[in-house]
Structure formats: C-alpha cells, structure tokens
C-alpha cells in the first residue's frame, strides 16, 4: 500500500545538469521533466521516501525529506 504524503522532495534547479538519472530510475515514477528537462515532483503520494533519487543524483540537487523531518523544518 502506498502511504500518502510521507515525503517532501526539494529540487535545486540551478544545480541540476539535466542528466535525467533521477527521472529514469525512480522506482515509483514520482518525478517528471519540466520544459527545461529538469525534474519536478509529479505525484508525491507515490513516493516511498527511498532516497534513491537523492543518492543517484550526481549533483546533489535533490533532497528527500521524510515526513518526520519535513515537519521539523
């Protein structure tokens, strides 16, 4: 079962080099490309908070905050 809104994803567009790794390998297709080929969050409700997008981003442009972290700031 997919839990609702367990994560918050922060994307720093100015760091992103548009390699598309995060888009391609998110196991739940949470991210989609915008017109500049940078990722945007499409359906956060599918996100498992696995952090693979954060860890596979070569440019540290993505931060996945899990709910408890998100509520703390």
């Amino acid at each position, binding site marked *: 079962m997919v839990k609702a809104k367990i994560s918050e994803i922060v994307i720093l567009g100015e760091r992103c080099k548009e*390699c598309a*790794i995060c888009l391609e390998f998110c196991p739940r297709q949470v991210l989609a490309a915008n017109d500049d080929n940078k990722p945007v969050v499409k359906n956060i409700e599918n996100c498992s908070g696995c952090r693979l997008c954060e*860890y596979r981003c070569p440019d540290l442009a993505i931060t996945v905050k899990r709910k408890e972290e998100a509520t703390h700031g």
Partner: protein
Amino acid sequence: MGLTYRDYLREELFPQMWCAGCSHGISLTAVARAMAALKLDPAETVVVTGIGCWGKADDYFKTHSFHGTHGRALSFATGIKVANPRLKVLVLMGDGDGVTIGGNHFIHTARRNIDVTAVITNNFNYGMTGGQYSSSSPEGTISTTSLYGTAEPGFDICELARAAGATYVARTTPYHVTQMDKLLAEAIQHKGFSVVEIISSCPTFFARYNYKVTAVEMMRLFKERAVDRERYDALTAAEKAGCFLTGRLHREEKEDFHTKYARLQQQAKARAEREVV
C-alpha cells in the same frame, strides 16, 4: 546530534565541476555517506587525490585533503599514514591515476598492506585529458588514442589488488548506491589496504565512443551487467563475458604495515636497551 553526510561536503562549491551525468558525483556523495555512517571525525580524516576528473574530488570534502601528483596519491597517502597512523586516510583515484600511471605504487601499497582505503572510479579512460585509453580499458576500446580499438587487454583492478596483497577488495557501480555505501563503509573500517573499485561512467568520452549512449543508458548497463558471486558462478562462460562481478570479493585478517612496524620498533628498542646494559 551526529553529522549527516552533507556535513562532510562543501556544498558551497556546487555545482561540482564534472560533466552532466558523470558518475563521479554519485561516488562523491557515497563516500560522504560512508564517512557519516562511521562517524569519522573530519579533523582526523584525510582525503588524498592525484590528478584526473575524480582527482578533483578532494575539493568537495570538509576533511583534511592532500592533492598530489599524477599516479602518486598512494605514495603520499603512505607517508601521511606512516607519519600519523591515527588518521583515517582515503585515497581517491581513477583508473588512470590508480593503476596506469600509478600502477607501481598500487601494487606496492597492496604488498605492504598499508592501512588506507583506495576508492578507484574505473571509467576505462583518461577523462580529464580528453579520453585516452588506460590500462583498464578493455581490448578493442575506442578512445582518442585508439580510434580503431586497442590491441591490448585491460587490467582487472580487483584481481590485481588481490594478487598484490590487498586485504579487502570490493567492486560496485553507481547504479547500486545502497551496495556502494555499505562496501565503502566496510572498506574504510577494514584494517589494512582496502580497495573499492567503482565501475564508472564517463558519458563524455568512453560511453559516447564505445557504446554511443548517454549517462542514463550507462546506468542501465550497470544495472544489467553487474552480478553478485552467486549469480556469476551460475553463468556460462559466454554469459560471464558480458557481465562483471560485484560485491565484496575478498577479505582477510592480516597484520597491517603500521602495526607490524610499531612492533618491530618496540623489539628493536628493547634489544638496544639490553645491549647498552
């Protein structure tokens, strides 16, 4: 509160210098995560590099760093560790720096079982200088110095490390980030010479010349071709040729150089004292 992996990184210097999709950025944050997992004290940790794209990685760590000359990172690291064995020393090298220009230093660091960790990002070419082939480039590699393919086989870095005496040897890929984090932490904790080979992508040169693919497709190749020991052993010879072994490949307990040296020093001192009396 403990440090998070980001506390080990100088994010103010981002975006980093590497090309779009270059896997070095993934390896960089994995090294930082291993540091955080082991709660390394940045003041007692030294990142040593030589020359190459990955050789720039030391710039991005909030630890001590030492940027040496091409191929000599392990020699500088040996000196640093011998002078102060308390320090955790991580040596970041590519295939060019680590086993081509620095091949001689590599085998002797392994032979001596120096207690440092070598993180070798193997992208099968010299990226920084424009994509020349290296000693790890597989036979037939297209590069700027082998337009019709190389006529020589490439080193298997893990086999080389093990044969020369490294006491911890592992291989992983940037696709397998969870495995990478785990193996790096294990290697850093290991007492003795530890080597983690990260099969890497150079989307700008090697990937483009040899596979005509993007960074994403290189990641997919890593996903498909990396196999663990169990799966590897079940493959036919023909299937093995298209795959590579990942995971922890070797680990043994063996007295490291510094422990042995301190013991010899003690013995020599005791003997000198006896002879004086």
